[in-house]
């Protein structure tokens, strides 16, 4: 299957570009970012606040499988329906500084659309850490699984 989601992280730059083509009309793609109850469904998070307007803000709380709560928040800098969202994103209680996100929504055809996401980090090192996060979590999960198996064997 073709990879619909592409990640471009150029060496030495403090940004990541993520692009994705959707088998959805532009209006439906944008709606997924606009409606709090839909955001909750696909992001698997609790939306405490989502003010989709210029100078608005948002606040999400996600509970991981271990029961730990993770809090995310940010400010909506610009909100232009069916076109773009410019916002900040920060994970509370982590060493990661706030990041700036530019989301551009594009119509490809009547039934398909595209999202261009540019994320800018405070430094190249911060970007590299974020890039490694799912990799590191994957390793941790593998370690935890291994520990569980070993504990069960005892």
């Amino acid at each position, binding site marked *: 299957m073709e990879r619909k*989601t592409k*990640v471009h992280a150029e*060496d030495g730059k403090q940004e990541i570009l993520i692009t994705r083509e*959707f088998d*959805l009309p532009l209006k439906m793609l944008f*709606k997924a970012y606009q409606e709090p109850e839909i955001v909750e469904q696909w*992001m*698997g998070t609790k939306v405490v606040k989502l003010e989709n307007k210029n100078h608005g803000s948002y606040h999400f709380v996600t509970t991981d499988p271990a029961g730990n709560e993770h809090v995310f928040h940010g400010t909506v800098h610009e909100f232009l329906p069916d076109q773009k969202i410019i916002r900040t994103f920060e994970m509370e209680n982590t060493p990661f500084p706030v990041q700036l996100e530019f989301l551009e929504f594009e119509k490809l055809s009547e039934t398909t659309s595209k999202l261009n996401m540019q994320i800018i980090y405070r430094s190249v090192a911060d970007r590299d850490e974020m890039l*490694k996060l799912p990799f590191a979590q994957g390793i941790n999960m593998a370690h935890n699984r291994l520990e569980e198996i070993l504990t069960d064997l005892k």
Partner: protein
Amino acid sequence: MNLRRDVFQAIADPTRRTILLLVAAQSMTAGAIAANFETSRPTVSKHLQILTECELLEQQQDGRKIYYHLNPQKFKEIADFIEPFRKFWDDRFNKLESVMKNYSSENDQ
């Protein structure tokens, strides 16, 4: 994780990227590589040392000469390294797509 960071630092340097491109075309000796740069031979040697320590380059002895060549396995690791990040977003967007398809069909009825 430090070793991995070194790999990324290694490929972040423009001279080292040029060295990798040169060696990708054919195995070369340190002298032949240095001939492509205006920087001093010890500087190029230092770059070669870093690339070898990160296992991006491998040395092969041929008589009295040492040839440098690429380590394809290491490059594969770097490519795979971004994959979990891409997968994270791909899963998330797949979910978005399926949620919105359900939403469309429910609202059409």
